[in-house]
C-alpha cells in the first residue's frame, strides 16, 4: 500500500485512522524516496504509578508535562510522527502529540513541525518551523526516547514542563575540524506555552495587558540560543560527546512595571558511551549522560534583582544483555531563593530503573524514585511501571 503524501498529511483528523495503515508501512525506508513519500509512526507511552503520598504532592513533584504524575494510570504521550524528504531540497518532520489530562480530556500538542535544508553548501543547514531548542542533550529528545520515565528536575524548572521549544529558525554549521563539531544558532519566539523561562512564565498578572505588552517591538523580544556540540571516537568501543549551550531572551517578570527583564540560561553536557567490540543487537553497552544548567532570572520586587537557579543530573545506563537495561540517575536542583516554593527549593532525587525491550518496538520499564526536597517534610517514594509501543516506520537509533 503506497500512502499518498497529500492524503496522509491532510489533517490531524485522520490521526487515529492512520493506525491501520501503519503496519503496511512497517518497513518503510525513507532512503527509497521513489517508493515511499514519507515515514509514518505512532508511539504510545503509558504508565502506572504508586506512591507514598497523594496525587496532589505527586503532581507537584513530577514537573514534566509528559511525566507520569498520579497514582493509577497515565497516558503520557501518544505521538504521531510523519517525516521524510519533501523534495531534493528539504526534509521535514511533524510530531503531533495527544495526551489525556486528569479529567480524561484529550490535549493536542504540535510537538515539532519543521523543515530543514539538505543541499546547502559549506556544511550549513537551515531549519525552520516549530522545533525543540538545541540546548543540552535531553531537551530535544522526545519522551519515548528518554532513559527514565520522567524529565530531570532541572530541565522542568529551567526549560519548562514540555521542554523548551518554539517557532523560529536555526542555522547550523558543521565546522571543518578533524573531529565532529557543530555550531547551532537559533532565533525563536519568546512567547508561547513552551517558553516558561521567557515570556510565557513569570509573574505577569494582568491577562489583558499581556497581549499588548507581548507585541514584538524589536530584536530584543526573541529568544536567541547557541550550542556548540562535539563528538569524537576515543577508540572503537568508546565515543564521547560534549556540548555547551546558552540561551538569552526577555522574560515576563517586568510586564507590570513596564521594565524589560531578561533571562539567561547556560548549560554543559557530557555523554560517554562504551559498546562492547563484539556486540549483538547493540548490547552490552554502558553509557553516562550528565548535564549541568544555570539560569540568571531577573525579577522585580521593588528593585530588580537576579534570581540564580541551577541544577544537574547524571545518569548511567547499563545494557547488560540484549534487550535489558538497568539505569541509575542522580540529580539535584536549587535556587538562591530557597525553600519558599517547590520550584526553588533545594531538591535531590534518585531514580533506579530496569527496562526490557522485547523487540525494538516495545518497551516495559519499572522505575523507583526517591524524592527528597526541603519543601516537603518527608522524602517521597514513587514507583512507576511504564509501557510503550511503536507502530510504523523504523525508529532511528539516536546517538
Amino acid at each position, binding site marked *: 500500500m503506497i500512502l499518498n503524501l497529500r492524503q496522509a498529511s491532510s489533517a490531524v483528523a485522520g490521526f487515529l485512522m492512520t493506525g491501520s495503515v501503519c503496519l503496511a508501512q*512497517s*518497513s518503510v*525506508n525513507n532512503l527509497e524516496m521513489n517508493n515511499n513519500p514519507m515515514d509514518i509512526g505512532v508511539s504510545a507511552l503509558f504508565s502506572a504509578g504508586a506512591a507514598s503520598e497523594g496525587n496532589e504532592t505527586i503532581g507537584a513533584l513530577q514537573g514534566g508535562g509528559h511525566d507520569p504524575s498520579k497514582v493509577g494510570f497515565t497516558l503520557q504521550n501518544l505521538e504521531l510522527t510523519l517525516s521524510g524528504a519533501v523534495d531534493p531540497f528539504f526534509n521535514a518532520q511533524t510530531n503531533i502529540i495527544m495526551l489525556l489530562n486528569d479529567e480524561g480530556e484529550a490535549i493536542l500538542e504540535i510537538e515539532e513541525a519543521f523543515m530543514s535544508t*539538505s*543541499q546547502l553548501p559549506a556544511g550549513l*543547514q537551515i531549519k525552520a518551523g516549530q522545533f525543540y531548542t538545541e540546548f543540552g542533550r535531553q531537551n530535544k529528545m522526545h519522551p519515548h526516547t528518554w532513559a527514565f520515565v520522567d524529565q530531570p528536575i532541572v530541565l522542568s524548572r529551567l526549560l519548562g514542563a514540555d521542554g523548551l521549544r518554539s517557532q523560529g529558525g536555526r542555522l547550523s554549521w558543521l565546522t571543518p575540524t578533524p573531529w565532529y563539531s557543530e555550531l547551532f544558532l537559533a532565533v525563536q519566539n519568546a512567547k508561547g506555552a513552551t517558553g516558561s523561562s521567557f515570556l510565557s512564565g513569570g509573574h505577569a498578572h494582568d491577562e489583558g495587558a499581556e497581549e499588548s505588552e507581548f507585541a514584538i517591538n524589536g530584536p530584543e523580544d526573541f529568544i536567541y540560543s547557541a550550542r556548540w556540540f562535539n563528538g569524537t571516537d576515543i577508540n572503537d568501543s568508546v565515543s564521547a560527546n560534549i556540548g555547551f549551550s546558552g540561551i538569552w531572551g526577555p522574560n515576563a517578570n517586568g510586564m507590570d512595571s513596564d521594565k524589560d527583564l531578561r533571562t539567561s540560561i547556560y548549560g554543559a553536557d557530557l555523554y560517554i558511551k562504551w*559498546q562492547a567490540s*563484539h556486540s549483538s543487537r547493540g548490547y552490552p553497552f554502558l553509557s553516562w549522560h550528565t548535564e549541568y544548567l544555570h539560569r540568571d532570572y531577573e525579577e522585580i520586587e521593588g528593585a530588580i534583582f537576579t534570581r540564580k537557579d541551577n541544577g544537574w543530573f547524571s545518569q548511567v545506563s547499563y545494557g547488560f544483555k540484549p534487550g535489558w537495561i538497568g539505569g541509575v540517575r542522580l540529580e539535584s536542583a536549587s535556587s538562591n531563593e530557597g525553600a519558599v516554593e517547590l520550584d526553588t527549593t533545594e531538591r535531590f532525587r534518585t531514580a533506579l530503573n530496569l527496562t526490557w525491550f522485547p*523487540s525494538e518496538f516495545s518497551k516495559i520499564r519499572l522505575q523507583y524514585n526517591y524524592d527528597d526536597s526541603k519543601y516537603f517534610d518527608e522524602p517521597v517514594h514513587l514507583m512507576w511501571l511504564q509501557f510503550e509501543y511503536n507502530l510504523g516506520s523504523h525508529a532511528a*537509533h539516536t546517538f
Partner: protein
Amino acid sequence: MRAIFVALIILFSPSLWANINIITTTSDLAAIAKTIGGDKVSVTSLTKGTRDPHYAQAKPSMIRKLFRADLLVLVGAEMEVGWLPALIRSSRNKRVLPNNEGYLDISKVIDLKGKPGQRVTRDMGDVHGAGNPHYWLDPSNGILMAKAIADRFGMLDPANKAVYSDNFAEFKLQLEQKIVRWKSELQRFSGEKILAYHTSLLYLSTAFNLDVRGYIEPQPGLSPSASHLNRLLKKIESENIRYILMEPYYETRSAKLLQRKTNINLVIIPQSVGSQPQIKSYFDLFDSIVNALKAVQ
C-alpha cells in the same frame, strides 16, 4: 606559519590524498572497494566487522565522514534502516543523497532471497520486506558487488576507469577460482542439516548447499525462550542435525545448552571482514569460514 597552513590544507582536503573518498556502511563493502580502487581511492567503513550491522550505532563522527564522502556504498535492503537515513539527513552532502551518483545501494544489483511472499507485519519479527540483506555471504555475489562498485568508480573518476575495470577483472578471476576450491573443500557438508542463529546465513547455506532446518531465534531478532530451545532439542534428535552455525556476536549460552544436551557441533562463522583480526579481505573471509567448518570433525 606556512607549515601550519600547508598542514591545514592537507587535513581538510581529502581529495589531495586520493581521487575519490569512499564511505561504506560495512567492512565487507570496504574490503571490495579497496581491492577495486587500489591507491586511487580512500575507503572508510562506518561499522566494524565485529558488530551486528543491523544495530550499528549512529555516531556524530559518522556525520563528519559522510559530509566529506564522494561516494556512499551501502548494503541496502533495509540493513541500515535503523541508523543510516538520519545520518544522511544530517550530513548536508548532496552527493550522497539517494538517487545521486554518490549513492550506491548494492542490493539493487543482487537477486535477493527470502523476500516474504506476503505483506510483512511486525509479528513476524525482524523480517525485511525487501528481502534478506546478508547477500555478501554468497561468494558469487561478490562478483556482482565488485562490478557495481567498479562501474560507479569509473563513472565518478573517468580518468581511472581502465584501472578499475582491470582490478575488477582480476578480482573476478581470482574469486571464481577460489569459489571452485572452497566448494570442493566443503564437499562433505553438501546437503548437511544445520541450525543457524538468525536468518543471516541464508546465502552462505545456499552457496555451499547446507540445509538450514531451524533457527535459535524463535523469530528473527527475538531472543530464544526455554520452550523454543526445548523444541530445538527434539528437532536436533529427530532430524539428526549435526551442526549449529552462528556469527561470533550472538550469545553462545543457548547454543552451548543445546551442545551439552545433544553433542551437536557448534561452529562460529565469521560473518564479515574484520570479524576476526586475520580477516582483512573478502577472500580471507571465505578462507576463514571454510577453515572454521573444516576444523569440525
